[in-house]
């Protein structure tokens, strides 16, 4: 038998180094993006930029209406997506019989998550804006975003529900609890973390999506704030798209500042969800 020259400790070191290198390759571009956006954009951001409406054909002024618009879209989207998505996930995981039809539904939902966002945008335009006559409005935009977000929430919530061990369900049922009581008092409290993770992803995506809101809600220039859900709003990603492609002679630093504002907004909203999740994690030990 031939002994290998490599000592296992050296092999271990090489593996550690290799994996760390790959991780660095993955992480460094992300840090670079954030870093470049920050360095190039921060100089433009001041109180005035954040609290006033754009003027002079988007060339001057701030992004206040776009911030408010994006916040409205995110909050309403989450308010629709999470309850409906979680309810659907509960039905699929806890209640639906394990039949071929149910599997088909699961598969369909999984695939819906992969449909390109511009397709949702066109669907929203056709159904909400035109057929249902909601017009280009917050309502149309939020419904389009929610439709797009639901598969994500359903899939991640279903995953979270499945992660709760069956022995907990059995213990609860064996104590005479009904299926709904078991779901409500044992399964759900132990899957909120996973559900929140899905919600965080959904928030980030909603805040950054451009295609679905392009035809359904986003206004090119609308300095006043919306009065009802039938009004249009400006939104940060749309605004960024507009000033980058539609309006000549805008400084690069302004575009970076808008991007940075969007980043901060997403991080801020996510921080709330992450805080709630961390607080829950502390109370759990399995």
């Amino acid at each position, binding site marked *: 038998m031939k002994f290998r020259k490599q000592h296992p400790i050296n092999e271990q070191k090489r593996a550690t180094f290799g994996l760390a290198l790959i991780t660095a390759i993955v992480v460094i571009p992300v840090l670079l993006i954030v870093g470049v956006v920050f360095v190039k954009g921060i100089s433009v951001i001041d109180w005035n930029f954040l609290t006033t409406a754009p003027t002079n054909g988007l060339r001057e002024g701030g992004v206040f209406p776009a911030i408010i618009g994006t916040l409205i879209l995110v909050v309403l989207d989450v308010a629709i997506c999470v309850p409906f998505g979680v309810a659907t996930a509960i039905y699929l995981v806890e209640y639906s019989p394990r039949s071929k039809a149910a599997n088909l539904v699961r598969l369909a939902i999984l695939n819906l998550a992969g449909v390109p966002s511009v397709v949702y945008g066109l669907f929203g335009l056709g159904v909400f804006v035109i057929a249902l006559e909601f017009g280009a409005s917050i309502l149309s935009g939020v419904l389009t975003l929610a439709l797009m977000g639901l598969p994500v929430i359903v899939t991640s919530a279903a995953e979270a529900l499945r992660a709760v061990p069956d*022995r907990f369900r*059995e213990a609860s049922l*064996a104590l*005479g*609890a009904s299926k709904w009581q078991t779901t409500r008092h*044992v399964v759900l409290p132990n899957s909120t973390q996973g559900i929140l993770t899905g919600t965080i992803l959904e928030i980030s995506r909603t805040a950054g999506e451009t295609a679905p809101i392009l035809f359904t809600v986003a206004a090119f220039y609308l300095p006043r704030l919306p009065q009802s859900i039938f009004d249009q709003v400006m939104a940060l990603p749309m605004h960024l798209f507009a000033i980058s492609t539609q309006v000549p002679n805008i400084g690069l630093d302004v575009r970076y500042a808008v991007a940075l504002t969007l980043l901060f907004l997403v991080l801020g909203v996510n921080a709330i969800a992450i805080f709630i999740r961390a607080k829950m994690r502390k109370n759990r030990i399995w």
Partner: protein
Amino acid sequence: MVKEINIEHLSVSYGRKKAIADFSLSIKKNEILGIIGPTTSGKTTLLTVLNRMIDTIPSASISGSVLMGDIDILKTRNIHNLRRSVGMIFALPVALPMSIKENVEYGPKMAGQSKRELSKRVEESLVQAGLWDEVSDRLDSPALKLSGGQQQRLCIARALALKPKVLLLDEPCSGLDPISTARIEDTLGELKKEMTIILVTNNPHQAARVADRTAFMLKGELVELSETNTLFTNPSEKRTKEYIEGKFG
């Protein structure tokens, strides 16, 4: 003799696989009935029939009759009430991921008992299960932090909080050390004054220590049922003798 449960011609199969075949047995009130037998002898299946936890297995089909008083367990619509009066303890302790107190309260709370009744039952049941002294000062700490033996006694307390008539135990000590096992066996001796206990065990010695009568099951059939002493010292069936002497199983 007062009968608690009367099983007649019970057969259970999972798909095409027979788990219990034409099984008949009467269980007396306030006895500890030990059930021994090798794996796949149908012991656990029998327990899950008695509180209808078998309903959670879609492939199971059941025939025969199981009477408890004037209720046919196999036909009752109110399985929630049935499970409240026929408690079940699993082989591995399953403390729910909540506090000790919430664990014990869980059953009666879901049954809609008042708050005052709940707090009364928490202490009562923990005392009955022999766990009160160890946990009375930390009822609000997570149940999953308890040791395995404590968790199993917590599970017993949790079932007792529903004031069951029958307690089913499925190899309750299989993962426990001898001291924890002894404590649980002592507890069972006390509990049988108030309820009927069916103890399934892989360990014939445990049946010999605590059971009043012992049944030996093999491949889904009842081979022999007699007073525990008789079964262990003078079994009438050759297969029983071989099993308790450790020749197979």
